[in-house]
């Protein structure tokens, strides 16, 4: 099977050509009854502290479900593994896909399945933590490859929020290739937060496939913080008339990281709206790519689609590319895209300085505010605390806050 190449538009600017699968071996599922990895347990406990109100908590080890805890969740709501679900659970939203999706198809050890029946309202978020570690890797000297798989279906008129966290130990090389399917049925409300906080030597290549049916509302927020190469591609199809889709993304690059966000707002039905906001900052010698396409198919009358990408370039060695695209086959539509790439706004800095705020503090406040602005509007309000914490830790590093080496 041929891996993608950066000659293809959707991989342009990416370091995908450097991926050598021979260096990786799929992690082996942990045998049942194995005592949990203390690092993983501590991480899950931390997430639980930041999200005290949860409807359920699912943990996986590299994609194999290791625990499911329900916190007073209605019995009709399915939260479990593939064995608990019916035939044809996978691939309803994502059929086919590139070589990496097919790798996940072939190697995912299990899947986290969340299925909310028609009319059910789940008030608190369902939290999924994928711990992707080397401990269970097979092979001689090969780095571990994990293939987490998650499927969320929200039934007609139902609503629920899911927070999916992909994490791992701070050391070690690894490859993590998650695939997440999100399906909002007629009139459903699906809110999703994806947070990636893997170690700095990990390649993370994620795919989210989302579909919203008639009058459904689907809101996603993906936050990429960890990884050496962090890619997330979100394809959202407005499949039913009157559906609304809101896509939000944030990334923060430090060191040598590469963050790569691809989005597709695919309008296949009339009277649909989609609104995308993607905000990122790059520091050190990190790099980011945002590439997004708005596609309005024939017949998708009265579509409204918006796309905004804002990038802060915090250091001279950092770089951000922003590539918005439109592909519109219908006339009666309203579409727009806007993108900015540049350092912290001089006027904003001057404004704060004119109040007596020193320049370094002014810059920190503005960059923190840049992220706060998008975090506080998270589609899952309960996730805000955790997102703030994870972004805050890395901003401290990116902006050289507190440490002795103030100049960098």
């Amino acid at each position: 099977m041929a891996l993608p190449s950066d000659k293809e538009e959707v991989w342009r600017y990416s370091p995908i050509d450097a991926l050598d699968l021979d260096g990786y071996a799929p992690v082996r599922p942990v045998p049942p009854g194995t005592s949990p990895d203390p690092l993983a347990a501590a991480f899950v406990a931390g997430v639980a502290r930041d999200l005290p109100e949860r409807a359920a908590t699912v943990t996986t080890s590299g994609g194999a479900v290791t625990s499911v805890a329900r916190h007073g969740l209605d019995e009709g709501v399915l939260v479990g593994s593939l064995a608990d679900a019916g035939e044809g659970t996978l691939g309803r939203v994502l059929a086919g896909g590139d070589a990496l999706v097919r790798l996940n198809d072939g190697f995912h050890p299990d899947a986290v399945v969340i299925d909310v029946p028609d009319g059910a309202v789940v008030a608190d978020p369902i939290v999924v933590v994928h711990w992707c570690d080397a401990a269970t890797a097979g092979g001689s000297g090969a780095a571990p490859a994990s293939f987490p798989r998650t499927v969320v279906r929200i039934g007609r008129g139902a609503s629920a929020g899911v927070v999916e966290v992909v994490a791992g130990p701070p050391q070690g090389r690894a490859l993590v290739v998650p695939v997440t399917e999100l399906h909002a049925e007629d009139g459903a409300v699906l809110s999703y937060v994806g947070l990636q906080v893997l170690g700095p030597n990990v390649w993370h290549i994620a795919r989210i496939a989302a579909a919203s049916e008639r009058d459904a509302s689907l809101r996603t927020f993906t936050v990429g913080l960890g990884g050496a190469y962090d890619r997330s591609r979100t394809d959202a199809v407005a499949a039913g008339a009157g559906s609304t889709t809101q896509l939000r993304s944030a990334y923060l690059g430090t060191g040598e990281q590469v963050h790569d966000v691809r989005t597709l707002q695919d309008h296949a039905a009339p009277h649909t709206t989609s609104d995308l906001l993607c905000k990122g900052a790059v520091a050190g010698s990190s790099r980011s790519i945002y590439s997004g396409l708005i596609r309005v198919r024939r017949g998708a009358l009265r579509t409204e689609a918006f796309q905004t990408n804002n990038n802060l370039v915090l250091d001279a060695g950092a770089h951000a590319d922003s590539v918005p695209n439109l592909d519109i086959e219908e006339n009666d539509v309203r579409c727009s895209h806007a993108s900015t790439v540049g350092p912290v706004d001089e006027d904003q800095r001057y404004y704060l300085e004119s109040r007596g705020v020193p320049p370094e503090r002014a810059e920190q406040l503005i960059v923190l505010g840049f992220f706060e602005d998008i975090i506080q509007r998270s589609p899952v309000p309960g996730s805000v605390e955790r997102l703030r914490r994870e972004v805050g830790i890395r901003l401290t590093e990116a902006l050289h806050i507190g440490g002795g080496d103030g100049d960098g």
Partner: protein
Amino acid sequence: MTAGHHLVVEGLHASAGGKAVVKGVDLSVSGGEVHVVMGPNGSGKSTLAHALMGRPGTTVTGGSIRLDGLELVGIPAWRRARAGLFLALQQPIEVPGVLLDAVMAEALAPDGSEEPTAERTPAGIEDRLRREAAAIGFDERFLRRALNVDLSGGERKRNEVLQLGVLRPPFCVLDEIDSGLDVDAVRAVARRIESATEEWGLGVVAVTHFHRLLRVLRADRVHVLVEGRIVASGGPELAEELEHTGYAAY
């Protein structure tokens, strides 16, 4: 005269975007005084204000600005602010995600030379924000917003006056603080500034196009700025006169 503060501007020349705009301005403002600067659009009023505050890109090409003897030319804006100067911008800037109280806390954070005081604790700042908001009829729910985000033009101007009240600097430059305010707000804002001149001896340089600001705010001096120079100075009656005659004579 209350406090013994002095802001003395002498022979100030400044350029913006490489263009000479301010061409020799002298001003001497003592604590508690109100000096008004009027002049046609494009005459250099905002450039003068930014030159005083030290905006990057507005370059002082000659002259001096001394605050209680300290030369402000050549020092960055935040140090000028800490030395005691405040600028209310003609167009206040939006800063997404940055809360007003956080900025006030940073602005009041001791930089080593100042003693921490009760007013500088979070509770003290909160208290001042509330009091100042009440004084100018600024809705308290705006206190929890990011700086100027989703505020109307008039609300932004009130927000500037609110910050002035929280920071209590010895001197302020108000660049068209009355533009965009409704009649009640003009009165409330003018009253707040007027009372500050007594409360802590605030010295004011107020740029305005409208005499109505001076119905409540007592002007000590009115200066007419045309093409970067002060071409006339007088008492408050000069402002009233200008409202009828315009700037044609200059």
